[in-house]
């Protein structure tokens, strides 16, 4: 009797609160579920047993603070990078991208640090470019490039349509792996691989115009004139030649008339000149070649 007066009321209130909230949750399902689906689809499914994926998922709890935490870790990695502390830098980059894989910048810059800067550090640590045998230097370059490429491969899971990732991969193949190849055939293979990656980049939404130009010039360098020619001929009609060019249909997402900057970046005239050059090299008679 003594107890019965207070306990039931708070108990009743608690029950009502929980019941109403549960009912609200059910009632709001048509509103909430699509939102949840939309947010979930933006993230790749975590791989089973992957520590970094689990970490990234766990960091969801932080909400908007997650990006800031990742920024902190990345800044720390940058400080380690300035001090050329190799292991710490790599660990920091891995952690930062695990906490917040959505930042493309972390992946791209991290890959550059791994593939380009760190091989120099290692050579320096072993006595410098004059002392360390060339073969050893090439081996270090290949090891570091592989590290950077693997890092970018990981990035592709989160940003499958980012042209910059393919560009960075192409760049590593071109700048690092080609000189580090053991023989002429290997070097050529790296060139072709880089050209292929630039082509991949050029097919992604929002890709810059220069991807195809780079692809063509690498193909040309490797002696594949015909492919270079085909690539340029294929791209030329889609390039904006003047502001308000109606035929321009390059960027699938926002499709405003081309701006002055874009016209400049497209360099349609330059592409046309290259086409003509390649025609000469391919022995195509004037007048028989490409007609815009």
């Amino acid at each position, binding site marked *: 009797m003594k107890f019965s007066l207070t306990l039931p*009321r*708070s108990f009743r*209130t608690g029950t*009502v*609160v*929980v019941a*109403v*909230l*549960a009912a*609200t*949750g*059910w009632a*709001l*399902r048509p*509103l*909430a579920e*699509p*939102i*949840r689906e*939309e*947010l979930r689809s*933006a993230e790749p499914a975590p791989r089973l047993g992957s520590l970094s994926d689990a970490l990234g998922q766990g960091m*969801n*709890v*932080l*909400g*908007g*603070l997650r*990006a*800031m*935490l*990742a*920024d902190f870790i990345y*800044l720390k990695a*940058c400080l380690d990078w300035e001090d050329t502390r190799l292991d710490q830098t790599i660990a920091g980059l891995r952690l930062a991208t695990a906490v917040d894989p*959505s*930042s493309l*910048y972390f992946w791209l*810059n991290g890959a*550059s640090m791994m593939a380009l800067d760190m091989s120099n550090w290692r050579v320096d640590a072993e006595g410098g470019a004059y002392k360390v045998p060339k073969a050893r230097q090439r081996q270090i370059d290949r090891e570091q490039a592989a590290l950077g490429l693997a890092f970018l491969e990981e990035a592709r899971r989160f940003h499958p349509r980012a*042209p*910059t990732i393919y560009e960075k991969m192409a760049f590593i193949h071109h700048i690092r792996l080609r000189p580090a190849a053991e023989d002429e055939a290997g070097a050529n293979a790296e060139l072709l691989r880089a050209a292929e990656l630039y082509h991949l980049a050029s097919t992604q*939404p*929002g890709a*810059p115009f220069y991807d195809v130009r780079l692809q063509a010039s690498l193909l040309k360098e490797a002696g594949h004139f015909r492919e270079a020619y085909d690539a340029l001929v294929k791209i030329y009609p889609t390039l904006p030649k003047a502001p308000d060019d109606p035929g321009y249909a390059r960027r699938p*997402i*926002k499709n405003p008339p081309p701006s002055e*900057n874009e016209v400049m*970046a497209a360099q349609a005239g330059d592409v046309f000149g290259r086409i003509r050059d390649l025609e000469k090299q391919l022995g195509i008679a004037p007048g028989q070649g490409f007609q815009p």
Partner: protein
Amino acid sequence: MNSMAVPFSFARTSLIAGNTFLEAVRQRLFLFLVLLAVALVAGARFFHEFDFGPDGGVPELKFLFDFGLGALIFFGSTLTITATAQLFFSEIENRTALTLLAKPVWRAEFVFGKFLGAWAVVGVFCALLTGLLAVLLWFRTGAILAANPGAFLHGGRIGLGDIAIVCGLQWLKFGVLAMMTLLVSSFSGTNLFSVVMGFFVLVICHLQAFAHQAYTRVEASSVALGLMIETLARVFPDFQFFNLADKVGTEAGLDAGLALRVAAYALAYILVFGFLAVFSFRRREI
């Protein structure tokens, strides 16, 4: 007795809200905003000086935005919970609620007045911080573009509208959080208990995504258990919804329709928690 009827009055509610807001202002609650602003400007300066490499403009803006938003979320959550609990309990502990509720004032007017006052405090905080962040970003964007007109060809430019949407959604989330804190306060005996519970609930709401994953797994093995976890998972709102910042600065940009639906979700929860807070407070002894 109809001529004597005292209907629920928005005027009284806003009076109570105004008084609550005034209390926060006169307690110099906003003074810490000055410190925060100084820190943000200093941060902007730091990111400007920091060497982000050849096309450093894009990451510079990203870092500035992340830190500004991080400060907003972190201090905003803290402010929401502590200020709401404090503004509520100052009335109870100083026994001013005694005088106020002895007037022809509905308990619902009191609860919603307290809510609106606290939410306005958080709103001013959010607006000032967002404004400062927007100005800093706008300023830096201009400088970066002047140095390199092509800096943002591949995205990375942070639109003022996006900032407003992201920060506005955070403010709505704080509204839900404030109302939840009020619900706890409506039966809690002390300020400290409300604050601790407020943070606890905040964490739970951020963990909702896990609960949802959990019940989809469990449902396969046991329907009853799955149903139970699902019910539990539905008791709290999911605060992950309010976090659309990932899309800012990308080519796709923010989805305004999605933001609108999240806003509707927040308002629905504010009303439901408000109703429950009134329900629980209605018979509290003052």
